[in-house]
C-alpha cells in the first residue's frame, strides 16, 4: 500500500466500522439481511448455531447442531467466531441464536466482580446477571476448567488424589501455569489462600498448551495447570488432582441462547444433550479429533447415536 492511499483506506475502514456499529450488526451478519434475521425473528427460521474459535467449543456446537437436525429442526452453522467479546453481541443482535458456553467464564464476562466458584452458585448467578434477551439452558456436568495435574508416577509415589494432598509436599515442588496465574485468585493467589499451598517455584508457561504438557511429562515441573478436557491427560498417563476445596471456577458446558429464537422443542433437545454430556466423553472425543484427525461433525454424530439422541 502506498502512503498516499493509507488515509483513504483508514477513512473507509472507519466509515465501515461506524456503519456496523450504527446498524447494530454483529459478526458475520450481512448488514442488508439484518431485517430478516434480526432480533424480531421468533422460532420460525433456522436456528443459527455458533461456536468460539477453539476445539471443544466447536465440538459441542457440532453436537448441538446435529442433535437439533436429528429432531428435524432446521439448523444453520456459523462456527469459529473469535471470542466472547464478539459472539455475545452477536447473540444479542441475532447474528447467531445458540452457542456452547462455559458457566464460569461467561459469568466473569457478564459480571467481572463475581466471587462465585461452585457449579450451582455460578449457574444461579448467571441466570440473574445475563443481559436481557439471553438465556442459558440446563447445564451439563461436562466441564472444561483448570485442573492441577501430576504424572501417574508422582501421584503413585506420594499417594496424591486431591489438591490438598499437595500441602506437605509443595515446599519442594515446582508448579507450572500460565503467567497470569501469578496474580490471579484462580491461580497462585487462590492456591495460597484457599489451600495454604506455597510451591517452591512457579514456572510461567502457557495456558494448558504444549509447553505446559511437555513440562509436566518431562519433569521440568512437578504440578501443572491443564484443562479438564485435554485428551493428553489420558494419553500420557497424567493424574488430575481433585479440587477438593472448590478453588477453580466451575466451567460447566451449557447452551447460551437468544431467548426468542430457540423454542420449546429445540430446548428439550438441548436439555437432553446436556443431561448426557460429561467431561470424560468430551476428552475422548477431543482425542479422536486431535490425535486421529477425525471430523468433528462425525465424532458428534457418533456420540449422539451412542447416547440414543440421534
Amino acid at each position: 500500500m502506498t502512503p498516499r492511499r493509507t488515509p483513504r483506506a483508514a477513512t473507509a475502514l472507519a466509515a465501515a466500522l461506524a456503519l456496523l456499529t450504527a446498524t447494530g450488526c454483529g459478526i458475520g451478519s450481512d448488514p442488508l439481511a439484518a431485517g430478516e434475521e434480526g432480533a424480531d425473528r421468533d422460532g420460525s427460521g433456522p436456528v443459527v448455531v455458533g461456536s468460539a474459535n477453539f476445539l471443544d467449543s466447536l465440538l459441542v456446537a457440532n453436537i448441538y447442531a446435529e442433535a437439533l437436525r436429528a429432531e428435524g429442526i432446521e439448523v444453520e452453522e456459523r462456527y469459529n467466531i473469535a471470542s466472547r467479546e464478539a459472539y455475545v453481541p452477536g447473540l444479542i443482535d441475532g447474528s447467531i441464536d445458540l452457542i456452547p458456553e462455559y458457566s464460569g467464564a461467561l459469568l466473569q464476562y457478564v459480571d467481572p466482580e463475581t466471587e462465585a466458584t461452585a457449579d450451582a452458585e455460578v449457574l444461579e448467578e448467571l441466570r440473574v446477571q445475563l443481559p436481557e434477551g439471553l438465556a442459558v439452558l440446563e447445564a451439563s456436568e461436562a466441564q472444561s476448567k483448570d485442573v492441577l495435574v501430576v504424572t501417574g508416577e508422582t501421584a503413585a509415589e506420594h499417594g496424591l488424589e486431591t489438591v490438598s494432598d499437595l500441602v506437605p509436599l509443595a515446599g519442594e515442588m515446582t508448579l507450572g501455569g500460565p503467567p497470569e496465574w501469578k496474580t490471579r485468585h484462580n491461580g497462585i493467589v487462590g492456591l495460597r489462600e484457599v489451600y495454604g499451598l506455597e510451591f517452591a517455584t512457579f514456572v510461567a508457561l502457557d495456558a494448558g498448551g504444549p509447553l505446559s504438557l511437555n513440562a509436566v511429562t518431562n519433569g521440568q515441573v512437578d504440578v501443572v495447570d491443564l484443562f479438564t478436557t485435554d485428551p493428553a491427560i489420558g494419553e500420557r498417563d497424567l493424574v488430575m488432582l481433585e479440587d477438593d476445596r472448590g478453588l477453580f471456577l466451575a466451567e460447566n458446558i451449557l447452551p447460551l441462547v437468544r431467548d426468542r429464537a430457540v423454542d420449546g422443542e429445540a430446548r428439550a433437545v438441548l436439555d437432553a444433550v446436556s443431561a448426557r454430556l460429561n467431561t470424560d466423553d468430551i476428552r475422548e472425543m477431543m482425542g479422536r479429533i486431535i490425535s486421529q484427525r477425525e471430523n468433528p461433525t462425525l465424532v458428534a454424530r457418533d456420540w449422539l447415536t451412542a447416547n440414543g439422541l440421534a
Partner: protein
Amino acid sequence: MNLIEWFADPAHWAGPDGIPRQVLTHLVYCAIAAAVAIVVALPAGLVIGHTGRGAVVVAGLANALRALPTLGLLIAAVLLVSPHVGSQLAFTVPALIVLVVLAIPPILTNAYAGVTAVPPQVRTAAHGIGMRPWQVLLTVELPCALPLVISGVRSASLQLVSTATVAAYVSLGGLGRYIIDGQAQLDYTQMLAGAILVALLAIVVEALLLLLERLVVSPGLTGRLRRLPDPDRAPGAGPDPAPTAAPVAAPASGRAP
C-alpha cells in the same frame, strides 16, 4: 497505576523479580549468546573472507538463519530438548540456542565482508614483506576489517537485547517477563515499562559498543587521526593505503592470488 508510579514503586526494584535482577538476567542471556556467536561466527567469517572459499555457502546459510522465526524456533527447541533434560535447563538451553542463531548472521557476514573489503594492495604488501597467510589474516586483514566486524557485533547485540525478551515465553527471566506477564495479566503499564526498559538497555549497549569501537579500531582507519607532517616524505607524495582502507567504500573485488 501509571508508568511513573510503576517505576517509582520500590517493590518493582527489589527481589528476584525486581528490575535490577531482570536487567542482569537479560544481559547474561545476551552476553552468553553474543560470546558463543562470536566464537562460532567470527573465525568462520574471517577465514571465508581470507580464503574466498565458501562465500556462497555463508551467504545462503546466514540468510536462511535470518529467516527463522525466533519464537517458533524457541518453542520447537523446547519441545525437542525437554524430553532429554529434566531440569530448568530444558528452557535455558533452547533460549540460548535461538539467540545464538539470531546473532550469528550479522557477525558472520560482516566479518566476511570486512576481510573481503581490505584493499588488495594492502594484502599484497603484507605478502610481499614475507608474512605468512595467518599473519596476514590476524595482523593485517583483521585490524583493517575491525570497523565492519564490530558493527556486525553491534547489530547482533541490538537484536539480542530486543529478542532476549522471548525467553520469558518459556518461563525464563529477563525483561521479557514484564512484557509477557503484563500481557497475560492485562497489565499494560507493566508491558509498557518492560518495553521501555528494553529500549533503554539497547541504547546503553549500543553506546558501550560504540565506545569499544573507538578504543580498538586503528585511528588510521577511521579518519580520526590528524595527519602529522612526515619527515621522510613530502606531504601528499604517493598514495597512502590507510585512508583508502575505509572498508565500506572499497569494492569486494580483485584480490592477490
